[in-house]
């Protein structure tokens, strides 16, 4: 590849970036959904009565064992088969978000279980109810412990947003294939450009999480993990 | 001619000069005990002898082979020098028998059956033939150290270097390792032993070497070193460790 190829790619960069913006929106949507459902699932697995806990375990097992792309097709085409009107974007957030919730639940569950039992007892001794003890004492500590595992999950779902291409979301891969269709010789450079954009995004994202981790660190507790 | 000669050995880590010119000679069949305060360079000296650590300056000969020469095939030399580590370093994925056999088969290229026979004989010698099929994690510290001595012996070494072989052991396990070493010394094995076991030094050492600050302060027979050291510091140090470690063993 010589230099002139890259001068040909440059004009397409804005279109690719517009596609990437959709990936970022997907990412924000699915990771928030995954966070909320994941925390709740983890809480259920750790604190709820056994039958409910088992149901939560089955839920995470299903979403961890089925390929992302199968989930995407299931939620998009499967739902529309029953007349539920879903956009491809919404189906993607739902499918990938629930998948992520299963992985996040596992991260949070580990964190909950590593909070010493004494914390809960001390909170209850103060007269806090079980739920309020969890919310005010256990949860803040567990979320902080989860950041390392969470940053892995972040990198992985960021890359998985490209799979939404399969059900027709007009994100970066779709934009790349449009450009490719009109300019066949640019195929390889375009995909290399897409790859580099993801590298930068992954790097920036991890930097941000690293900063957050430092901000949220409890003085004196460093190096506990 | 001496079996081993060490000449003016220097080693520096960053700004710290750990060995500042060490010279010694060792005859075949001799047992030397090296003592000295922590951080003095005793381990570094042993490791420089078989070049597990590269010395910066100085020479080492094993008979007429210059170990420190670039042209020497160091792996051939190491096969002739046994090394016993403070923390045993048995290969964790191999049984006691395989630990002893590995060097015979892979370095000495001995056929499997012959290697097995030799390895079993060495395990017998350290009293562990019954544990041939045990893995290191299934052995006590004393047993592990005896297997590691058997591993060194199997290679038919001309010389064995011991780096504090009993320091990582619980007190009640030290004796079994020392008695194996005492027997070796009596059988005429050539050994350099870094240790603070003064009972061992008194009963089998031909010479005691006192190191401090990267140099040999004084050396001599146990008798001379214990009764009439020339350097006051030697007597002081010997009294201190005799108090600490006792001599009863």
């Amino acid at each position, binding site marked *: 590849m010589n230099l002139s190829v890259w001068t040909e790619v440059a004009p397409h960069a804005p279109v690719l970036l517009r596609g990437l913006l959709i990936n970022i929106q997907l990412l924000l949507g699915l990771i928030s959904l995954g966070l909320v459902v994941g925390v709740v699932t983890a809480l259920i697995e750790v604190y709820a009565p056994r039958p409910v806990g088992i149901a939560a375990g089955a839920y995470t097992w299903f979403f961890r064992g089925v390929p992302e792309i199968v989930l995407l097709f*299931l939620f998009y085409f499967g739902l529309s088969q029953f007349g539920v009107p879903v956009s491809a974007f919404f189906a993607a957030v739902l499918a990938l978000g629930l998948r992520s919730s299963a992985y996040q639940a596992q991260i949070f569950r580990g964190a909950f279980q590593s909070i010493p039992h004494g914390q809960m007892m001390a909170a209850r001794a103060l007269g806090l109810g079980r739920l309020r003890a969890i919310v005010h004492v256990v949860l803040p500590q567990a979320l902080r412990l989860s950041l390392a595992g969470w940053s892995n999950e972040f990198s992985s779902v960021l890359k998985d947003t490209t799979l939404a291409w399969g059900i027709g979301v007009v994100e970066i891969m779709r934009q790349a294939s449009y450009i490719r269709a009109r300019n066949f010789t640019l195929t*390889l450079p375009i995909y290399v450009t897409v790859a580099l954009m993801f590298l930068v995004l992954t790097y920036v994202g991890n930097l941000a999480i690293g900063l957050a981790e430092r901000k949220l660190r409890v003085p004196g507790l460093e190096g506990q993990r | 001619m001496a079996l081993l000669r060490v000449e003016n050995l220097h080693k520096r880590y960053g700004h710290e000069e750990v060995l500042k010119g060490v010279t010694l000679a060792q005859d075949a069949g001799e047992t030397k005990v090296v003592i000295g305060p922590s951080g003095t360079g005793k381990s570094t000296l042993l490791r420089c002898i078989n070049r597990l650590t590269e010395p910066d300056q100085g020479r080492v000969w094993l008979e007429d082979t210059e170990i420190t020469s670039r042209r020497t095939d160091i792996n051939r030399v190491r096969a002739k020098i046994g090394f016993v580590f403070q*923390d045993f370093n048995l290969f*964790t994925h191999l049984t006691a028998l395989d630990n002893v056999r*590995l060097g015979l088969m892979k370095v000495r290229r001995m056929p499997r059956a012959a290697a097995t026979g030799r390895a079993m004989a060495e395990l017998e010698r350290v009293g562990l033939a019954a544990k041939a099929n045990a893995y290191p994690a299934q052995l006590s510290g004393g047993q592990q150290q005896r297997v590691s001595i058997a591993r060194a012996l199997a290679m038919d070494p001309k010389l064995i270097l011991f780096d504090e072989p009993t320091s990582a052991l619980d007190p009640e396990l030290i004796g079994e390792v020392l008695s194996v070493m005492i027997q070796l010394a009596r059988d005429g094995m050539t050994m350099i032993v870094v240790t603070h076991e003064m009972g061992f030094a008194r009963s089998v050492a031909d010479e005691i070497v006192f190191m401090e600050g990267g140099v040999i302060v004084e050396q001599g027979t146990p008798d001379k070193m214990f009764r009439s050291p020339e350097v006051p510091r030697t007597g002081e140090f010997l009294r201190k460790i005799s108090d600490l470690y006792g001599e009863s063993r």
Partner: protein
Amino acid sequence: MNLVFDPAWLPRLGQGVLLTVQLTLYCMGLGAVLGAVLGLVRVYGGGRWSPLYWVASAYIHFFRGTPLLVQLLGIYLGLPTAGILVGPFLAGLLAMTLNTAAYQAEYFRGAIQSVKSGQMMAARALGMSRAQAIGHVIMPQALRLIIPPWSNELIYMLKYSSIVSMTALRPETMDLFGVARSIAARNFRYFEVYILVALFYLAMVLILTVALRWVERRVRIPGLGTPGRGI
């Protein structure tokens, strides 16, 4: 709601399973070889400033930091424009292999580094060369440590193999999900077909998990805990 499952789907899905399993095992095997080499280079390749170390690190960062789909399409659609023709199966296998090798390299590095340094020293003290020490002492221990992360990776790749159907696979070389898509496209029973195929994947995950646990127990070093659980 009225669900329709047709047993006539099963033979074709079965063939898809076969291809998925093949693709997964091949890429894991080839990826292990490449990953082991990359991992060894990262540990023994001469340190931060050697070109070999640098190339291995760049490779690992690139393939871990970019989506597998981009790698797949780059290979399947991009390489032909540079005059290198690859069929859909080979493109899928290549992308998956290159991708998993980068992840496996990191597992190998971690496993090699968690073998205690005294092991290398003891091997060298016996007169073994560096290569012998790595081959007879370091790797046998590292390989045991690598089983748990490797099992996870295998399950990841089993699932990710479904994206090869994003390239137009020919009917005779269709993976499980490719078969499912082609069945669903004909009879519009999306929900039933995709749920069924999801269960197929779950079953495969279950079987692999059990099988690998068994292997892990088989190679456990007596007296030590489960390998890899402690690190």
